Structure formats: C-alpha cells, structure tokens
C-alpha cells in the first residue's frame, strides 16, 4: 500500500517537530526520517522580506503529483509537504518536506525528489522586498533547479 501524502499550502508558519511527531508516533517500524526545510535568506541583510504568490489549487495539485510519484518510486511510509505563501521575513521557514520510511535511502530520495520537482513545477513566485528601498523585484528562476529535476529521469 502506498502512503497518502499530506500536502498543505498556508500563510501560517509550521512546527517541524510536531509534524514529525504526527508521522512517527503511531508507527514504531519507521526507521528513517529525512526532512528538508527551506528558510528565507536575508541575502547579506539586503532583504526585508520575501512575498510569495501562488496559484491556489494548482500549487497543491503539483506538489501532490510529485509526492505521489515519490511514494510509488520508493518504499515510503509517510510524506508531508507544507509550503507557505504571503510575506515571509528572513530566517523564517518557507517550505518543509518530511519523508519517513523503514530505510534511509528511501527517506532521503523521497524528500529530495519532492523538493526538486516542487522547485520547478509548483506554481509559487517570490518577490524580494529590499532594505535599501529600491523597487521590489521578482526572483528569476534558476537553470540549476531545472537541471536538478532532470537527474531523476
């Protein structure tokens, strides 16, 4: 039986340890928990905040697509993905992926696969608000993110 991923897109912050606890407390045969969290960087204190825009509905759908694919590729017991939108300050959390499994390779691969696909497929856009008052600008997509996705093919 493949796991049913938990996907949440929300403005509020989240609690990584509470999410891990929710995934592991009911199952004493999980041996491995891999997590990734993405934080808002200050870019050398030049950034006041990031503003994250998203496409409601499609954001959840795209994350779910990659999460379900991960659950068929590897023996994953649980997969939780939380992505925030709205205004986020430097140091704050933006995204969280948790993959649990009996085995560490599946947990690592699952978490990384979801992050790679989320980066280039999930409809979120970052706008940078600068400390120096210059006009806010949209972050350019990185070629390296597209390449990261291709390594799974």
């Amino acid at each position, binding site marked *: 039986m493949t796991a049913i991923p938990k996907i949440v897109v929300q403005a509020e912050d989240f609690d990584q340890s509470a999410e891990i606890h929710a995934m592991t407390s009911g199952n004493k045969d999980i041996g491995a928990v891999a997590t990734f969290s993405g934080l808002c960087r200050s870019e050398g204190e030049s950034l006041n905040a990031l503003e994250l825009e998203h*496409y409601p509905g499609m954001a959840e759908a795209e994350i779910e697509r990659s999460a379900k694919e991960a659950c068929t590729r590897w023996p994953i017991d649980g997969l939780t993905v939380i992505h925030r939108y709205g205004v986020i300050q430097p140091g704050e959390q933006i995204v969280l992926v948790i993959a649990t499994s009996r085995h560490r390779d599946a947990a690592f691969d699952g978490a990384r696969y979801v992050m790679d696909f989320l980066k280039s497929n999930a409809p979120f*856009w*970052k706008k940078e608000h600068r400390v120096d008052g210059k006009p806010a600008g*949209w972050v350019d997509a990185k070629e390296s993110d597209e390449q990261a996705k291709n390594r799974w093919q």
Partner: protein
Amino acid sequence: MTEFTVKMLYFSWIRERVGIEEEQLVLPQTVSTVRELLLWLRERNEQFAAAIEFPDIIRVALDQEHTEHESSIGTPREIALFPPMTGG
C-alpha cells in the same frame, strides 16, 4: 474549433504587467494551440504586449496542468499564464 468563454488567470510579473488578476475571455476560433493563444493575447493591448514580449518564457496551465506551447487548447474551464516558478 468554435468560440468559447474561459476564465483567464495571470500571476507574478505577468499579472503586474497586464494589470488584472483574472477575467472571463472569449477565445476566437482562430486560436487552437497554446502558442496561438499567447500571440493572440499579445495583440490585445500594450499591457499584454509588454507581458508577452517573449512568449517562449511564458508558462501556461490548462485547468491547472502545465501545458506545452505546441499543445492544442481544447476547452478548459481555466487558463493561467505565469513566469517560471521560484517556490521552495
């Protein structure tokens, strides 16, 4: 293909340049692929011309699914235009 009405959504700097978040739009019969849609939208006014200056970089989703520019449009309920994603 016959004319039909669709909900258009615009995100990020495309939304800013066209000046609207969403609208109901009647697509003409002549528009049958995603690429034709982009080129047709570009002719609407200066805002759309600025937003779709380089059609190749625009991403299009039909009913919330990423779609190639060569694909035919079909009859989706909603079409979204946006730049490459920068989430995560």
